[in-house]
């Protein structure tokens, strides 16, 4: 089977970055590309929601939400006891791995599309649902439910972060406008989607490469964790998919969501809520190890695991 070209763009970025080529995209373009991806993913989910009653999905949402709480609780003891990280660092990393990465999601979607495998179209809803619980878990693990944490201000920053607003906004617009009417904007959001993803991954490759320096400082445990924990998470995701009776495509998507680690929403939240935790530690793991692993090897691997378990 041919490699998906979007993955080749990631490998190009990674290689160029490791060779220290001078070619970062302007951050305005990075943001532009990610805005298009987020809205497009939201719109697709919203169009689907407009076709089925929302209440039917509530049990699924509850189950996925539960997974969002469980995953960081699984990661924390490994990091704290086995990895001997400081409590705040262990919690922060756990928060990153309990949450999700939209870029990884998009690659899995592209992977399944190129194989012609369908998946439950309300998957973007799960993407939204999984962003937040792990952040709460991370904070509570360090602070308890103490009043010191400004939950009001914090929940504002979490729920009104760019990715959540654009995903939910896209969902809502797709839902309200419906399939027919959204076609008029497909020239911006759907037709160039894979090309946008390709450019986005080129930049992500460059960013991931820039994390490698830090990687050397933090040693082997982080490297191992960044590869092995996602595989464990993917099995949890597949188990959830079996429980929810999702299709095999849905299982791959949920496995990927579980296996992916946040590199935008969670770092920002941790910097404010747990400033004593070391931001380069978690970012190195999530961006420098897990993201490349998932893009290049993880997604097909989760597909194989899902096929084996289904």
């Amino acid at each position, binding site marked *: 089977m041919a490699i998906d070209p979007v993955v080749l763009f990631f490998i190009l970025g990674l290689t160029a970055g490791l060779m220290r080529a001078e070619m970062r995209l302007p951050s305005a373009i990075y943001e532009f590309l990610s805005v298009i991806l987020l809205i497009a993913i939201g719109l697709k989910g919203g169009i689907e929601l407009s076709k089925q009653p929302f209440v039917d999905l509530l049990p699924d949402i509850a189950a996925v939400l539960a997974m969002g709480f469980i995953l960081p609780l699984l990661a924390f003891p490994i990091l704290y006891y086995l990895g001997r990280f400081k409590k705040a660092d262990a919690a922060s990393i756990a928060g990153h791995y309990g949450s999700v990465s939209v870029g990884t999601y998009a690659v899995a979607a592209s992977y399944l599309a190129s194989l012609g495998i369908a998946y439950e179209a309300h998957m973007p809803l799960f993407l939204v649902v999984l962003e937040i619980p792990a952040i709460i878990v991370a904070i509570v693990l360090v602070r308890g439910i103490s009043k010191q944490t400004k939950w009001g201000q914090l929940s504002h920053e979490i729920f009104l972060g760019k990715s959540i607003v654009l995903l939910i906004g896209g969902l809502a617009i797709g839902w309200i406008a419906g399939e027919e009417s959204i076609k008029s904007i497909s020239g911006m959001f759907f037709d160039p989607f894979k090309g946008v993803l390709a450019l986005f991954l080129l930049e992500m490759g460059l*960013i991931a490469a820039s994390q490698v320096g830090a990687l050397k400082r933090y040693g082997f445990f982080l490297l191992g964790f960044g590869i092995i924990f996602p595989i464990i998470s993917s099995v949890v995701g597949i188990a959830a998919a079996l429980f929810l009776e999702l299709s095999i495509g849905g299982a791959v998507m949920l496995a990927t969501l579980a296996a992916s680690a946040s590199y935008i929403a969670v770092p920002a939240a941790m910097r*404010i809520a747990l400033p004593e935790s070391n931001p380069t530690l978690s970012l190195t793991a999530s961006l420098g190890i897990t993201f490349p692993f998932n893009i290049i090897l993880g997604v097909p691997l989760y597909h194989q695991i899902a096929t084996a378990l289904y």
Partner: protein
Amino acid sequence: MKQYSMKLVTIVTESILEHHLEDDLDKLGIHGYTIVDARGKGSEGMRDDFWSNQGNIRIEIVCDEKTSDTVTEFLYKHYYSDYAMMLYVSDVSVLRGKKF
């Protein structure tokens, strides 16, 4: 034209703190400041990534000496230990204008 001696406080810190510091300055009664985006190197290593709030901002505040001490101590207490932050103070003269 008559000129007045003031202090110029310059702060270089994480861009993620921008809105928090704005709120702080407001509460400290400081209603004038100038911000530019910056990158740089310090004890926390290189900081130059804007895609994920990993860049810096550089804040300038022209104020009297007392305010300069207040803001300096405030920032030292609340942010110095947990955030990348550098701060220095110098002498400037300002025109008597509508602003001071």
